[in-house]
């Protein structure tokens, strides 16, 4: 099974032919198309958008608007003003927790997250619950790491204001039933907030069809640049949300006493925007669309199936999470008597990049009964040889650590 894009599309990968990059769930490598698009903005159309009364600024404004259109298309959002550019998923989720949460969560209300959340979709909700005197509830997981929707349906009440959950677990690759959870939230009038950081890069996402209120994602995990992300929300939610930050661009009129706000999306994008970031994300969306997100998902599923079989066949290895057919391209595992950090160091010696640790998901680690796992994650540029190298390196590490 070969990669579904040429390795030569990625300068870093072509410059390091021996590199086995298995950490795309942390951040993905960048195709030249993305870097070129960003560079092109700086070299041909660069000025401050929305401001200058001159042609160059108008071109910059146009680039930014076109980027938003492309991103909206990728995420299946008809109303592109509902795509807000942020610094990334963490930023997006913090905006919602702080701005929407503060305005809508009161004492005695309930905020629900799942036990498999990344800290970015856990801590902001925990903290706003503490601040507002609300009850913070952690929805239990099924044995394979998804939100237990039966329990969730029984947990919710009129007091439930938010249900925050991941599209795909960054540790287990387990895919949550997004529409089902959104329906449960809707049944009690709660806001459904989906952390799509591990979803959007790996499978087709249609925001309008998912029916969630909020969807957040990061550009850097989907071949785009670091420092850019999106906050996508239903218009009535975003329109009613108090501005998170105030300043330039987001105002309609600033009086001495009062200020009125600009319309979406500008209302939620204070200050000079990261236009190059948006342009880069748009190029990444176009690159992924050209491959086809169904092809991306199928490729990862095929790779992770082989990896799951080969890695779990090694004695003493425990793979966490669902079966290969039900996960995205993420494989978390532990090896008896070898700590994940030692594994990562030994694999690095063979130019194999994996992640080791708690993956910013300590509540999930506790639920798995481990302090850390090793995680290999796959993307469009990985192939079966990468899996082979991983398996060989794991066997070698086991030999080194074997009890004498």
């Amino acid at each position: 099974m070969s990669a579904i894009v040429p390795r030569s599309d990625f300068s870093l990968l072509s410059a390091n032919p021996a590199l086995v990059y298995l950490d795309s769930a942390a951040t993905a490598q960048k195709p030249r198309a993305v870097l070129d698009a960003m560079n092109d903005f700086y070299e041909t159309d660069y000025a401050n958008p929305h401001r200058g009364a001159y042609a160059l600024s108008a071109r910059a404004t146009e680039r930014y608007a076109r980027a938003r259109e492309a991103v909206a298309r990728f995420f299946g959002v008809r109303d592109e003003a509902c795509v807000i550019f942020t610094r990334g998923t963490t930023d997006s989720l913090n905006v919602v927790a702080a701005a929407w949460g503060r305005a809508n969560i009161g004492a005695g209300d309930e905020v629900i997250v799942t036990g498999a959340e990344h800290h970015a979709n856990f801590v902001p909700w925990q903290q706003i619950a503490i601040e507002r005197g609300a009850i913070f509830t952690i929805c239990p997981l099924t044995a394979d790491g998804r939100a237990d929707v039966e329990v969730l349906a029984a947990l919710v009440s009129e007091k439930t204001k938010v249900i925050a959950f991941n599209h795909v677990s960054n540790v287990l690759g387990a895919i949550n039933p997004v529409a089902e959870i959104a329906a449960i939230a809707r049944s009690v009038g709660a806001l459904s907030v989906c952390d799509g950081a591990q979803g959007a890069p790996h499978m087709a996402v249609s925001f309008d069809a998912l029916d969630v209120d909020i969807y957040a994602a990061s550009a850097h995990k989907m071949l785009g640049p670091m420092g850019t992300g999106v906050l996508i929300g239903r218009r009535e939610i975003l329109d009613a949300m108090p501005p998170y930050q105030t300043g330039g661009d987001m105002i309609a009129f600033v009086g001495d006493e009062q200020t009125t706000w600009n319309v979406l999306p500008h209302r939620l994008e204070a200050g000079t925007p990261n236009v190059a970031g948006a342009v880069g994300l748009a190029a990444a969306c176009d690159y992924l669309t050209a491959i086809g997100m169904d092809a991306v998902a199928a490729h990862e599923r095929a790779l992770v199936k082989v990896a799951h079989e080969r890695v779990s066949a090694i004695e003493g290895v425990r793979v966490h999470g669902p079966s290969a057919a039900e996960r995205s391209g993420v494989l978390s595992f532990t090896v008896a008597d070898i700590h994940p950090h030692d594994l990562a160091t030994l694999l690095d010696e063979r130019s194999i990049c994996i992640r080791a640790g708690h993956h910013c998901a300590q509540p999930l680690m506790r639920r798995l009964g481990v302090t850390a796992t090793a995680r290999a994650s796959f993307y469009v540029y990985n192939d079966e040889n990468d899996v082979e190298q991983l398996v060989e390196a794991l066997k070698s590490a086991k030999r080194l650590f074997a009890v004498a």
Partner: protein
Amino acid sequence: MTDTSALYQEVILDHNRRPRNYCAMADATIEERGVNPLCGDELTLYLRMDGDRIADASFQGSGCAISRASASMMTSIVKGKTRAEADALIEQFRGMATGQTVLDDLPPTLRVFAGVARLPQRVKCAVLPWHALHSALTGGTGSTAV
């Protein structure tokens, strides 16, 4: 043998498999928890002080081979040492792990950790127990993070 394999020498692997002084201490006079927030690894260090001298030292916790072996060797070597002697060892070990100290100062058994200086992301693993020891000997907060 590459640099990394050189770090995972038999002595480190042995201390990882069979850590010395790996137990709770009922009559400990100081108990200090060390945490590496980056990876979630933690250990509890137990010391029984006899005046100015460390009469006994032990540890428990979860961590990688580097941090376990480091704690295992550290608890062995500081037994019977005065605070000042332990302080000097802490200083030397930290210096070695960050690649700054002349190795001559350090007991030969601890020099197996010199390799971590080339692995910036693993320095904290080796230093964690020593950090906890330093905190324990300087008043102790009960919990310390590297």
